[in-house]
C-alpha cells in the first residue's frame, strides 16, 4: 500500500508535467474536448485506487492515457446505448489493443494543436486565457477564478461554454494553415503575454506579483518555443518574458513598495534567466523577420543593459517605439514612446503628446503617473500633484500606491523649495 499523500504528490507531478500531452492526445483520439476532460478525470480517480493497491506503474502517463481511453469508451457506450453503430468505439478499441502490445505507449505530441485550439479567435479573449491555463497549464478552475477576480462557478461556466462551443460549432483541432498562421500565432502570443501581465501587475491585493501566473506564462512560452522552434516572434515573446521576469526579485523593497528600475539592486536579479533571454533575443533578431514581441524584448533588453552601465540609450528606445507603433498603433504604445522622448531630451514635445493622449487614457494609471513625473520636471507642480492624486486613486495594489505616494511627497517638497526660491 502507498500512503495517499505520496500518491497524491506523484499524481500532481505527473499532471503538472504531462497534463497537456495527455489531454491533447485524448482530444486527438476522441475529437471532443468535454469527453476528453471527463475521461481524464475518471482515469485520475481510478489511479488513486489502483496505484494505492498495486503501486505506481512504470509509465504513469501511459497508464493514465490507456485508462482514460477505456473510460471514454464507457462514456460513449452509455450515451449511445440505443444507437448500436459506434465507429468511435471500434477506433478507440483498436488504439487500446495497439498500446497493449507495446511496452510503453508512444504518446504523439499534439500540444501545439491544443494551444491553437484554446487560443482560437472565435473564443472571447478572457475565455482563451482561462482555457489555456486550465488545459495546458493544468491550473484548477478555482485558481484561475482567483487570478482573474472571478467566482469559481462563473469561471467554471465560462470553461464549460467554451468546450461546448468548440464541439458544437466544430472549431477544428488542428494547427492553422500557412495563410492563417501569422494571425493565429498572434492570438496565441497575446494570450501568453496577457497571462504574464496579469501575474506581473495584479490589480488588487497586497502582493503585486502573482508569481504563479508569471511562471505559468514562461512555462507556456517555453513549451511553444519547443513545439515550434525557430519562430522569431515566439523567441521574442520568451525573451521579453525572461528579461522582465529575471528582475522580479528586485522589484519590491523589504517593506513591499515597488522599486523603480534605476534604483533596483542588480545583485537580486536572476542573471542566468536574464542571459537566456538576451541570447534568445539575439537569435530571434538574426532571423531577420521583425515583429512586435521582438521589439518589446529589445526595449526590455536596452533597459537592462543600461541599468548595468548607468546610461540608457533613450534615442534608440524612441526609435524602437516608432517601429512598435507600426505594428501596434495604440495609445499605450504612444504613451511609452512619449515617455522615452521626454527622457531623450524632448520634454516639451512629450508634454504635447501627453495632452493629446488624455481622452484615450483617462482611466489608465500609468498615464497619470507619467504625467505627474514629467509635469513636475517641467516645473508645473500644481498639475503634477493633481496627476499624482489621480494615479494613486487608480492604483490597484498597495505596492504601487506606496511607490507613488513617496514620489508625490518628494516632488511636493521639491516644488515648495522651487517656489520659495522664485
Amino acid at each position, binding site marked *: 500500500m502507498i500512503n495517499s499523500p505520496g500518491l497524491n504528490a506523484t499524481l500532481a507531478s505527473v499532471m503538472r508535467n504531462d497534463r497537456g500531452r495527455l489531454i491533447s492526445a485524448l482530444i486527438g483520439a476522441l475529437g471532443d474536448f468535454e469527453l476528453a476532460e471527463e475521461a481524464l478525470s475518471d482515469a485520475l480517480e481510478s489511479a488513486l485506487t489502483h496505484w494505492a493497491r498495486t503501486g505506481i506503474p512504470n509509465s504513469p502517463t501511459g497508464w493514465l492515457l490507456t485508462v482514460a481511453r477505456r473510460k471514454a469508451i464507457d462514456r460513449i457506450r452509455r450515451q449511445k446505448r440505443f444507437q448500436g453503430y459506434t465507429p468511435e468505439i471500434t477506433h478507440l478499441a483498436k488504439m487500446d489493443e495497439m498500446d497493449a502490445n507495446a511496452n510503453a505507449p508512444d504518446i504523439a505530441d499534439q500540444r501545439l494543436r491544443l494551444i491553437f485550439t484554446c487560443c482560437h479567435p*472565435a473564443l472571447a479573449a478572457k475565455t482563451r486565457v482561462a482555457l489555456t491555463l486550465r488545459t495546458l497549464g493544468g491550473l484548477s478552475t478555482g485558481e484561475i477564478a482567483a487570478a482573474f477576480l472571478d467566482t469559481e462557478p462563473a469561471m467554471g461556466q465560462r470553461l464549460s461554454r467554451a468546450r461546448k462551443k468548440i464541439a*458544437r*460549432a*466544430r*472549431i*477544428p483541432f*488542428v494547427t*492553422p*494553415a500557412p495563410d*492563417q498562421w501569422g494571425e493565429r500565432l498572434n492570438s496565441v502570443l497575446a494570450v501568453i503575454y496577457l497571462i504574464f501581465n496579469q501575474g506581473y501587475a495584479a490589480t488588487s491585493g497586497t502582493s503585486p506579483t502573482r508569481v504563479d501566473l508569471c511562471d505559468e506564462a514562461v512555462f507556456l512560452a517555453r513549451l511553444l518555443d519547443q513545439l515550434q522552434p525557430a519562430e522569431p516572434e515566439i523567441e521574442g515573446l520568451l525573451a521579453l518574458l525572461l528579461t522582465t521576469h529575471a528582475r522580479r526579485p528586485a522589484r519590491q523593497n523589504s517593506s513591499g513598495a515597488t522599486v523603480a528600475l534605476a534604483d533596483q539592486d542588480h545583485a537580486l536579479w536572476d542573471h542566468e534567466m536574464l542571459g537566456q533571454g538576451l541570447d534568445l533575443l539575439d537569435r530571434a533578431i538574426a532571423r531577420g523577420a521583425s515583429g512586435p514581441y521582438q521589439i518589446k524584448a529589445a526595449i526590455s533588453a536596452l533597459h537592462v543593459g543600461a541599468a548595468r552601465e548607468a546610461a540608457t540609450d533613450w534615442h534608440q528606445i524612441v526609435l524602437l517605439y516608432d517601429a512598435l507603433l507600426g505594428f501596434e498603433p495604440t495609445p499605450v504604445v504612444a504613451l511609452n514612446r512619449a515617455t522615452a522622448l521626454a527622457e531623450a531630451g524632448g520634454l516639451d514635445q512629450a508634454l504635447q503628446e501627453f495632452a493629446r493622449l488624455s481622452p484615450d487614457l483617462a482611466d489608465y494609471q500609468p498615464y497619470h503617473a507619467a504625467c505627474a513625473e514629467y509635469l513636475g520636471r517641467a516645473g508645473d507642480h500644481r498639475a503634477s500633484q493633481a496627476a499624482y492624486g489621480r494615479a494613486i486613486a487608480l492604483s490597484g495594489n498597495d505596492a504601487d500606491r506606496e511607490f507613488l505616494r513617496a514620489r508625490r511627497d518628494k516632488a511636493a517638497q521639491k516644488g515648495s523649495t522651487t517656489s520659495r526660491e522664485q
Partner: protein
Amino acid sequence: MQYMALIYTEEGKGPKPGTPEFGAFMKGYMDANEVYKRDGVLIAGDGLKGIDTATSVRIRGGKTETMDGPFAETKERLGGYYLFECEDLDAAIKYAAMIPTVAFGTIEVRPVMMPEDYGK
C-alpha cells in the same frame, strides 16, 4: 456541417446603386458565388428586401398579431444570408469573409442544428 452566414449592415452604409463602386460590389458577390460553387460549399444564399417591407407576426392569447417592421429596431439589420456546407468553423469563417459586405457590415456565422443536436 452546415453553417449559416447572416449578413448584417447598417442602413446607408456601403456603395450606392448606380455608382461604379456598386458595380464592383455586385461583381464581388458574383465572384464569391463562383468560388462557393467551385469548392462545393454552397447550399443556398439570398439577399432580403429592405426592412420597410418586413412584417412581424406572433400569436398571443390565441390571437394572431401582426406588426409593421422588423423584430427588433436595431442599427444593424439582417440583409441576407448564405448557407454553407463545410468541414469546420475555420472553413466557414474563410467563406464568410469572402462576402463583400464584410468590408462595412458584420457576418454572423452560426452552425445549423443537426438531428443529434436537438435536446442539447
